């Protein structure tokens, strides 16, 4: 019987020729990732074990991106712990403020993760890297500590769901809308424990940044991973970037899927996910009279250069509604520099937005744009849970950078068509 791309990557990292869904296997990992929230616990667990060395100093990645530049003494202490651990163990991939980006944008951009990899990260959005044709999944801190010690971890081999996107994308519809629509259709546990394999003619022509956006939100459907089989777009993206040689796998034609879901993209318009679950999606044309107080354009989901370009295209020569604060956050220093070069920052600040340095900040209610009681935000982030961006009685509406920018101008949820 054939195997899916996910099964092939997992088998290649275990000592098994073939594997089947639900089987528990042990795998070697290529990259183990942690951030300033999750790595401190992992470091504590690692040190309690009393081993002297990490399994491979080049395969551990420590990214202080959540509460950075540090918002308070406690978060500064957490990053200090990462910094000291990185120095002690001569960790190759530790990046500090000024050089660091949001982990799930920074790692692909810098070529630290690549096609065919098996990656675990102590951050749920680690699934982002599936867009490169890798198996990547989020775990907790103790899993990170274990893998830092042994270079291995265990997995229950996931069943795969095949999503087939066909038709032509409507104007102002992006990867973000496709994944929000998909989560709306299958629900927040529709892919629980499963690998979401994104296929079809629409995916074949979707730019890498938008593939990354889609895989990023696999976890919001409960998925263990999201994946796009590598093609010319993948090869072009990884060329001159990947610091290790990628391996390209494809699903066999007779691979078994637990479910196949066909999605006609011509029926999809820009999506908005209402509080307090990403599955509460609506077509933007059905949304009326939702006044907002804040817009956030950024995060590991939508802080890519392409996202900033779309937002700038809409904001150019316009002013943000006087009732709205608009915060734009590039995901990495490279994206920041490119935005500067292209004049995007000028457009944002002239439209009365603030332009921040890379940080996860407001997405998780950390800092840099917290909501007060009763306030509403449109955000290009990935979660709209209760209290996610601040006060438990605040509200987050998830959308694409295009809808977010249009809403910032309109002062309420709006379609780019209206602007």
């Amino acid at each position, binding site marked *: 019987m054939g195997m899916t791309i996910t099964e092939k990557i997992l088998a290649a990292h275990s000592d098994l020729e073939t594997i089947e869904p639900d089987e*528990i296997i042990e795998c070697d990992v290529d990259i183990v990732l942690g951030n300033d*929230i*999750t790595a*401190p*616990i992992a470091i*504590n*667990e690692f040190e*309690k*074990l009393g*081993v002297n060395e990490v399994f491979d100093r080049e395969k551990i990645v420590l990214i202080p991106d*959540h*509460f950075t530049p540090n*918002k*308070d003494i*406690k*978060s500064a202490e*957490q990053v200090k712990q990462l910094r000291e651990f990185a120095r002690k163990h001569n960790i190759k991939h530790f990046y500090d403020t000024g050089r660091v980006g949001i982990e799930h944008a920074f790692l692909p951009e810098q070529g630290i993760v690549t096609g065919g990899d098996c990656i675990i*990260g*102590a*951050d*749920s959005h*680690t699934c982002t890297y599936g867009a490169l044709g890798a198996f990547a999944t*989020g*775990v*907790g*801190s*103790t*899993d990170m*500590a*274990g893998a830092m*010690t*042994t270079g*291995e971890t*265990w997995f229950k081999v996931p069943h795969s769901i095949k999503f087939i996107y066909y038709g032509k994308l409507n104007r102002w519809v992006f990867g973000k809308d496709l994944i929000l629509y998909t989560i709306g259709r299958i629900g*927040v*546990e529709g892919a*629980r*424990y499963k690998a979401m394999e994104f296929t079809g003619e629409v995916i074949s022509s979707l730019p890498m940044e938008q593939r990354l956006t889609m895989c990023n939100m696999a*976890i919001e459907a*409960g998925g*263990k991973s999201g994946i796009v089989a590598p093609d010319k777009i993948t090869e072009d993206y990884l060329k001159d970037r990947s610091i290790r040689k990628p391996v390209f796998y494809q699903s066999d034609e007779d691979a078994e899927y637990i479910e196949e879901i066909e999605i006609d993209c011509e029926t999809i318009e820009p999506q908005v996910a209402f509080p307090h*679950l990403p599955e509460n999606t609506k077509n933007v044309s059905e949304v009326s009279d939702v006044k907002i107080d804040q817009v956030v354009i950024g995060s590991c989901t939508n802080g890519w250069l392409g996202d900033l370009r779309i937002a700038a295209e809409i904001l150019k020569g316009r002013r943000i509604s006087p009732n709205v604060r608009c915060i734009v956050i590039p995901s990495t220093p490279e994206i920041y520099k490119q935005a500067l070069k292209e004049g995007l920052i000028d457009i944002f600040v002239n439209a009365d937005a603030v332009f921040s340095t890379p940080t996860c900040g407001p997405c*998780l*209610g*950390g800092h840099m744009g*917290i909501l007060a009681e009763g306030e509403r935000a449109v955000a290009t982030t990935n*979660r709209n*849970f*209760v*209290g*996610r961006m601040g006060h*438990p009685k605040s509200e987050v509406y998830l959308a694409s950078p295009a809808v977010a920018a249009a809403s910032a101008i309109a002062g309420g949820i709006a379609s780019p068509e209206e602007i």
Partner: protein
Amino acid sequence: MVLRGKCWKFGDNIDTDVIIPARYLNTTNPNELASHLMEDADKEFVNKASAGDILIGGNNFGCGSSREHAPISIKGFGISCVIAKSFARIFFRNAINIGFPIIESPEVVEETDEGDELEVITKEGIIKNITKGLEYNIKAFPPFLQEIINNGGLMNWIAEVKLK
């Protein structure tokens, strides 16, 4: 191990932001984390619940962020176990890895009301609803996971099995 406590019932999709909001993640101290347990779902929870009590959840308990602070804050408070219809996968792994008991049982969740007193006999895989006089058999974990649980979590298992 026999766990006995009063039940606190929550619904479907209890996410880790609700279990422990991100604004408190600038610490890893279990007691400090525990003082904010379930704060955004019920601000009074920490004042009402007691050590030994049991959390009951619906489907997809622990969805969202990978923060291990979620099971750490539950364990740190002294909650004896979580019983849910289903668990989100990262929360599931995290609980096993830190040696915190979790039980998947839609039947028990359906038939338990808030305030019921439950007794969980982990070794025999039995749950008793003392208040209602009901008894359930629970499914054992796969042997590999049971081995991690028996060792008291992932790091102990690594120390005992991998590094020896």
